[in-house]
C-alpha cells in the first residue's frame, strides 16, 4: 500500500517537474519588455552571420566596422513621422549551415523581436528566407547565394519574387564576377589570357553559360578551372593554367583559397602570373603573414572604400560617415582598419532600410516599407542604387555594387580600375 502511494506520488512529482520546466521554457519565450517611450526608439536588426567554424572570418572581421557605422548613425538617429529612431544590430551565429541559419533566424525573430534582417553572408539564404518570409520580416541579403538564384540560372531557385515579397535580393555573384572580369581587362589591356577559377559549387550551371557568352561577346580570352570546396592545394590547377598560357588568374574563392593560390603560384615560380580575387582583402596583416610580403605584392582584389570610387558617385555626407566609422573601428580594434569590403555591405543595407522607412512613413508596416523599396532609389555607401531588377531573374528588387579593383603596391591597396554593375543580358 505504502509502496503504491510512493509510486504515485513520485510520478506526480515528476509530472509537476516536467510541467514547471515547460512553463519556464514558455515564459522564457515571452518578448522582452517594450523600450522606454521617451527618447529615441531602438529598432533591432538581425544579422545572421557565420561566427564559428571555417567561414567565421566573414562574420567576425567586419563586426567592428558594422557596429561603428551604426554608432555613427545613432548619433543623430533618423526621423520617421517626427519620432526619432535608433538602430541596433543583433549578430547571431548561423554556423554557415542551413540548420544554423534557420535556428538563428527563429531566435532573432522570436527572442530579439527583429523585424528586419540585413547583412546576411552565408550559404543558407533559403533556410533563412523560409523563416523570415512567412513572418513578414524584411530580409536584405547581399550577394545572391548559390541556393537563391533561380533554377534556370543554375541556382537552387530559393528566391522566388512571387512567393517571397519580403526578400530584397542582392546582386547575383555572376554579375559581380563578370563586372570584375571587365574591370581586369580595363586595367590590363595587354593580357594574354585570363584563367577563371571558381569553386565547383557553381560549376557549369546556366548562369555560368551566360557569363561565358557575355565574355565571348566582349572578346575576352579566358580559360576555366573548378576546384572542390575545401581544397588547400592549388598547385595542379595553377600548373594547368600556366600551361594554357594564362597570365592573369581570377579566383572566386574564399580567403583561405585565395591566399593559398597567391602563395603557391609564387612558390611554383610563376612570378609573372597575376592573381586576382573577386572579394576584398579581409586584412592586410593576415595576407602578409600567410602569403608572405613578396608573394602578396601585386595581388588584386576588390576595393570598396566609397571615397576612392572614380566612376561611381557617392554622397559626400555618407563618405564622411564611413570615414568616421572607420576611425572608430580602428580605435576599438587598436589597429588601422583596412577592410573596405564592409562599406557596401551592412552600411548600405542600413541606408536602404532607413531611407525606405522614411519614404514609407512607417517603421512597423512591412508591406508599406517593401512598397517603398521596390523600384525606389536610395543613396548608399556605394553610390545611388535604384532597386529595380526589371531585367534580371524576374526579380523586381535587385541591387548591386560596382566592381572596383585595387592592387597591392608596397603593402598598400592602390586603385586599379572600376566597372559599373550591368545586368546580364
Amino acid at each position, binding site marked *: 500500500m505504502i*509502496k503504491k502511494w510512493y*509510486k504515485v506520488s*513520485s*510520478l506526480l512529482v*515528476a*509530472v509537476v517537474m*516536467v*510541467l514547471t520546466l*515547460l*512553463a519556464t*521554457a*514558455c515564459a522564457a*519565450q515571452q518578448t522582452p519588455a517594450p523600450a522606454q517611450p521617451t527618447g529615441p526608439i531602438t529598432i533591432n536588426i538581425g544579422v545572421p552571420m557565420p*561566427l*564559428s*567554424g571555417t567561414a*567565421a572570418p566573414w562574420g*567576425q572581421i567586419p563586426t567592428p566596422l558594422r557596429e561603428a557605422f551604426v554608432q555613427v548613425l545613432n548619433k543623430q538617429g533618423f526621423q520617421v513621422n517626427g519620432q526619432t529612431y535608433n538602430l541596433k544590430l543583433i549578430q*547571431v*551565429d548561423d*554556423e554557415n*549551415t*542551413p*540548420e*544554423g541559419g*534557420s*535556428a*538563428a533566424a*527563429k*531566435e532573432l*525573430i*522570436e*527572442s530579439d523581436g527583429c523585424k528586419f534582417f540585413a547583412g546576411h553572408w552565408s*550559404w*543558407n539564404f*533559403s*533556410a533563412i528566407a*523560409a*523563416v523570415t518570409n*512567412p513572418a513578414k520580416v524584411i530580409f536584405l541579403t547581399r550577394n545572391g547565394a*548559390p*541556393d537563391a*538564384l533561380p*533554377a534556370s540560372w*543554375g*541556382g*537552387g*531557385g*530559393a528566391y522566388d519574387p512571387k512567393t517571397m515579397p519580403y526578400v530584397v535580393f542582392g546582386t547575383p555573384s555572376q554579375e559581380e564576377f563578370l563586372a570584375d572580369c571587365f574591370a581586369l581587362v580595363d586595367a590590363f589591356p595587354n593580357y594574354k589570357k585570363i584563367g577563371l577559377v571558381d*569553386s*565547383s*559549387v*557553381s*560549376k*557549369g*550551371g546556366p548562369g555560368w553559360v551566360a557569363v561565358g557568352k557575355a565574355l565571348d561577346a566582349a572578346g575576352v580570352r579566358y580559360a576555366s578551372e573548378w576546384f*572542390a*570546396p575545401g581544397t588547400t592545394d592549388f598547385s595542379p590547377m595553377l600548373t594547368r593554367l600556366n600551361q594554357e598560357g594564362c597570365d592573369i588568374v581570377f579566383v572566386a574563392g574564399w580567403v583561405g583559397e585565395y591566399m593559398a593560390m597567391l602563395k603557391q603560384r609564387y612558390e611554383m615560380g610563376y612570378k609573372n602570373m597575376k592573381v586576382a580575387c573577386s572579394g576584398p582583402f579581409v586584412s592586410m596583416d593576415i595576407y602578409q603573414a600567410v602569403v608572405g610580403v613578396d608573394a602578396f605584392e601585386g595581388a588584386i582584389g576588390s576595393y570598396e572604400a566609397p571615397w576612392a570610387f572614380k566612376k561611381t558617385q557617392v554622397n559626400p555626407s555618407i563618405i564622411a560617415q564611413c570615414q568616421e566609422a572607420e576611425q572608430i573601428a580602428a580605435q576599438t580594434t587598436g589597429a588601422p582598419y583596412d577592410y573596405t569590403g564592409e562599406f557596401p555591405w551592412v552600411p548600405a543595407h542600413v541606408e536602404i532600410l532607413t531611407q525606405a522607412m522614411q519614404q514609407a512613413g512607417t517603421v512597423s508596416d512591412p508591406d508599406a516599407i517593401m512598397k517603398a523599396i521596390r523600384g525606389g532609389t536610395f543613396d548608399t555607401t556605394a553610390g545611388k542604387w535604384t532597386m529595380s531588377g526589371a531585367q534580371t531573374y524576374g526579380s523586381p528588387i535587385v541591387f548591386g555594387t560596382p566592381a572596383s579593383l585595387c592592387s597591392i603596391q608596397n603593402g598598400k591597396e592602390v586603385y586599379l580600375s572600376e566597372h559599373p554593375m550591368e545586368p546580364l543580358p
Partner: protein
Amino acid sequence: MIIGRLYIDQKSVVPKVVIGVVIALLAIVPLFTTSMVTLSTLISSGIWAVAVMGFILILRTGQFSMGQAAFMAIGGYVSAILTLNLGLSYYWLSFLASGVISGLIAFAIGLIVLRAGGTSFSIITIAFGEIVRIVALNWEDLTHGAAGILVKPPPPINIGNFEINFSLSLVPFYYFMILLVVASALFYWQIDRIRIGGTFRSVAANPVLAEHLGVHLMKYRVIAFTIAGVFTGFAGAYYVTFISVINPLIFDLWKSIQIMMMAIVGGPSLIVGGAIIGSTVLYSLGNYLSQLPVPNVQYVVFGAVVVLVLLFLPKGTGLVDLWGKFWRKVFREPEEYEIPGEFADDEEE
C-alpha cells in the same frame, strides 16, 4: 566486444507509464507554446533521434557506421528530386520513396562493405559518406550542386473542414515529427525485443559463437544496415523538408560523427531511449550554446560532454542508464532488482 553492456531489461528501465506520460506531455506541447525556437529544437532533436536509432541498431551487430549522415543525404535528395520533378502533390510518395531508395542503397552497399568488419568498415563508411557528398556536389543535373534544392513543405491535408497546413506554422511539422519518431521507435523497439534483436546482439557479443550456432553473420549485419538505411532515409527526407533546403554541405562527415556522439551520450544499450535522450540533450545544448555571444563554445562543450559521459558514467552506458539506475532505486524493491549487468559489474570490481 564493441560496447559496454548489451543487455538491459528494458521494462525495468523505462516503465510504460513513464513512456505514456512523456508522449502525452509531448503531444500537448503546442498547447503551451507555439514558439518557433522551442518547437524547432524539439523537431530537430526528434529527427536526429531517428537517425541515432539506426546507428545503434547497426552497433547492435558490432559495427559502427560513420556514414549514417550519407543516408540522410540520400533520403533528402531522393525526396527533394522527386518532388521537384513530379510536383508537390507527390510529396508523400516521394517521402516514402526516400526511405525505400535509401534502404536499397544501404542494402547494396552493405553487401559489399560489410564483408570488411571492424575498423575497416568504419573507414569505408567514412569514404562512402564523402563520396556521396562529392557526387552530390558535382552531379549538377540531378542535385543542382552546392546550390542545393529548395524543398517545399508538404501540401495541405484536408480532413473534413480541418486543414493541416505545413506552411503556416510549425505545429503540423511538430506532430508529424512525433509520428515519425513514434513509428520508428515502435519498429526499432519491437525489432530489438524479438528474436532477430537477440540475434543482432549475439553477432556483436560473440561473432564466432553466434556463427557456430547457425547465425549467418553477414546476413544479419546487412539486415541491420538496411533497416537503419530505410529509417535514416526517412529522417533525412523530413529534415530537409523542415529546414527547407538540401545541399551537399548539410550532411557531411561531422554530422555522421554527431550521430555517433548522440548515441554515446544517450546510451547505446537502449535503442529507443538512448537515442531520444542523446539527441535531445546534445541538440538542445548545441542549439542553446550556439546562440551565446562566445563563438565556438558549442564545440568545446559538445566534445567535453561526450568525454565526460564516457569517463564518469559506468562503462560508457550513457545517460539512459543513469536514468534507469535512478528509476530502479526509487521505484523497485531490492528483491525485484535483478538485472544481468549488475552481476557482471560485481564480478569485475
